[in-house]
């Protein structure tokens, strides 16, 4: 019962955060709210018994992502514009709103037949998961089933993931590795390219 209440409270707070991020115009506040959003989702993962995932989400989402976004904000706004607000939206929001509502309604219609949250007899808990839970101790000797699956049973996926991280690092180095090269056309007009 307490589990349910904590779950529902955290999810409602997350939804309120998401709506606040849409409405706020000050970019600094948006990034801070995003850090709080990541942290709340890490708490939600703990409530749903996913300890490794909560660890990673707290470290990566609330740590690295927020720092990189703040660095981008510092690089893309001149020091004089302290406000760092986004422009007032110029288009009418009717088309995006209708697209979002139709997609959301279709998705909710699709979840009508999903087995209830936490059902032990759901099809997702059959076939492979009991095999991993039973056989991971005798075959690998590692008590943490998530590490055993990640490193031993699905080792190829982890190899691909490490390669993706490495490639992203190389790409960031290629894009913004050196010091800033100043385009003289932009420096002359003080920020906007001459047409």
């Amino acid at each position, binding site marked *: 019962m307490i589990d349910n209440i904590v779950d529902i409270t955290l999810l409602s707070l997350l939804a309120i955060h998401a709506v606040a991020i849409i409405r706020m115009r000050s970019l600094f506040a948006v990034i801070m709210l995003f850090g709080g959003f990541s942290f709340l989702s890490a708490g939600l993962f703990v409530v749903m018994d996913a*300890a*490794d995932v*909560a*660890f*990673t989400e707290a*470290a*990566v989402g609330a*740590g*690295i992502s927020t*720092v*990189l976004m703040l*660095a*981008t904000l*510092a*690089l893309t706004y001149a020091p004089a514009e302290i406000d760092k607000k986004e422009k007032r939206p110029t288009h009418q929001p009717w088309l995006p709103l209708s697209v979002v509502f139709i997609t959301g309604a279709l998705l909710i219609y699709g979840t009508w037949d999903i087995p209830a949250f936490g059902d032990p007899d759901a099809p997702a808990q059959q076939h492979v998961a009991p095999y991993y839970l039973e056989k991971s101790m005798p*075959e*690998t*000797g*590692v*008590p*943490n089933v*998530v*590490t*055993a699956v*990640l*490193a*031993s049973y699905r*080792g*190829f996926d*982890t*190899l691909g993931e*490490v*390669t993706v*991280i*490495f490639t*992203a*690092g190389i790409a*960031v*180095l290629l894009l*913004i*590795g050196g*010091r*800033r*090269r*100043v*385009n*003289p056309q932009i420096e002359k007009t003080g920020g906007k390219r001459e047409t």
Partner: protein
Amino acid sequence: MKHNLILRVVSKFLIPLIFLFALYVQFHGDFGPGGGFQAGVIFSAGIILYALVFGVDSAKQVIPPYVLRLLASLGVLIYAGTGVATLLLGGNYLEYGVLASSQVAGQHLGILVIELGVGITVMSVMLIMFFAFAERGRPEMNSESKSE
């Protein structure tokens, strides 16, 4: 700098603890939550804290960028190299059972080595990205013109 005083004192106390915690998470990934990714990110968070409080130049003296590039490649090499080692010892690619005397001991050794590779790569890539973002704002120090 008076307004930096609390930050400097507290971070000098916290940063070694952060590194210790990162090493704990790395090597206890088998017995509790943790593993390579989390440890790499926590380690890099310690160095990012150092760079934020004491300046990016001091952080670059702690870990020069060429070392970071070396470490990033080294991590991927360790991971793929374990697979090749198992190939050379007679098993399939990434079959850890042939690495040691028994199947379970081989799995332990294999998982330890590849988590180390993952941790090293994740730490260096996060730091590479942070240094690239932090250094972009400074204009070139030499006076030669650099127009594109």
